[in-house]
């Protein structure tokens, strides 16, 4: 009796088996790659803004503090985009005829707000609050990427739940004291980094990575120090990962 199946079938069945396993894995992988890609999250993509506002010019080169334009960031949930009047404090006198600033002047004359494109956003079922994060000494760049380098603002991180939880699970891997001012209030420390950068003071490797918006990469000793800070600041680690913290 001849064989029912030729030898080739062995290969076919192996390939089929392999595909049956690999395909779903591949699909899941591709799916998550697409979800995290810039096409979906807009991370690292400068948006088309009505005015080509440059954080690099204004914060790094002119040395304006973030709080001059985002004054509510320390005390409330929202950082907010500045009012037209904030720009006109200077631009009523500097670059008064620049075409780039025409929408600003028009907005000031007519009293209609400039319509900035929103860069950073969490879904509306998520509760986020800036003030508590600043009060614990987290620099803006930890979440927003290297803002002081941006000519047109882009998004530094995708704000997926996973990303928030990475830090809420282990805040000790993100908190550090400023070696030059160990006793500085954490709130003030968050902004000191920009000033140190502007005036060319020495930065530790961790501070550099923070400024560049990169992962901090703490070693064991720094994590130990981080744990002390968690205690000192009274971070409520137990409830940080409870669902109601961010979904309320």
């Amino acid at each position: 009796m001849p064989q029912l199946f030729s030898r080739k079938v062995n290969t076919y069945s192996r390939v089929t088996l392999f595909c049956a396993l690999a395909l779903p894995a591949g699909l899941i992988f591709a799916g998550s790659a697409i979800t995290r890609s810039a096409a979906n999250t807009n991370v690292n993509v400068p948006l088309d803004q009505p005015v080509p506002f440059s954080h690099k010019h204004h914060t790094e080169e002119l040395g304006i503090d973030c709080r001059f334009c985002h004054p509510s960031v320390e005390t409330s949930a929202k950082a907010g985009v500045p009012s037209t009047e904030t720009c006109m404090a200077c631009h009523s006198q500097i670059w008064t005829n620049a075409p780039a600033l025409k929408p600003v002047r028009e907005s000031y004359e007519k009293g209609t707000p400039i319509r900035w494109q929103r860069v950073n956003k969490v879904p509306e079922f998520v509760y986020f609050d800036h003030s508590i994060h600043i009060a614990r000494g987290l620099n803006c760049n930890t979440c927003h990427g290297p803002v002081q380098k941006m000519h047109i603002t882009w998004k530094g991180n995708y704000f997926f739940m996973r990303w928030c939880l990475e830090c809420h699970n282990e805040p000790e891997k993100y908190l550090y004291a400023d070696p030059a001012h160990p006793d500085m209030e954490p709130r003030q420390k968050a902004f000191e980094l920009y000033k140190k950068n502007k005036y060319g003071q020495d930065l530790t490797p961790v501070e550099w990575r923070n400024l560049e918006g990169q992962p901090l990469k703490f070693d064991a000793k720094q994590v130990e120090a981080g744990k002390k800070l968690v205690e000192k600041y009274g971070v409520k680690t137990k409830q940080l990962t409870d669902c109601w913290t961010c979904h309320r």
Partner: protein
Amino acid sequence: MTKTDWTRCFAIVAAAISLAGCHNDMWTQPKLRAQQESDFFADGQADRMPVPGTIARGGLKEDEAYFTGRRNGKLVADLPSRVVLSKELLARGKERFEVFCTHCHGYAGDGKGMIAQRGLSLRRPPASYHTQRLREMPIGHFFEVMSRGFGVMFSQATRVPVEDRWAIAAYIRALQLSHDFDASSLAPDETQKLNVPADEQLGLPGAHKKGEAEGAPSKE
């Protein structure tokens, strides 16, 4: 249709129904968030201003000296009674001054902020605080300049709350004293401390040195 066909059909319908469950009314909810656009209000803004004349509970501004810097129409010469002069007040004043004023007026209040240093002079340069006229001005004047603006300088009132404005005014007074002082009246050990470069006294190592080298290309 065979049995498998029915199963398939069922699977497709089930998938279609569960996919239809994926809509995003939780992502964008009917509520309005700060600075959002709104098609409900005529001006298209979600942010509403209080009706003119509204007074929030506990927000009645009775204390004239505290809220306007004037008493009976005259600028106050001393801090209002609610503001207590202390080390903390001056520290707060210094911090806030550096956030809201230094880029125009400079860390020392000499009118040489970063904007002036970069050669981009304002049409009217930011004032130096170290003039005889301003030294003689009552403290209420500084409060009023911040609250209402002065000449070409815009009001800072939307950014700087009242208590911080007083802290800044007190700090400006301290700056003025520091620049108008007879050093020979100091004890010798105190004179020693004066030889510390000005930038270090300001707690800002390198500020002045860097300021002079500002025209140099940045290190990037």
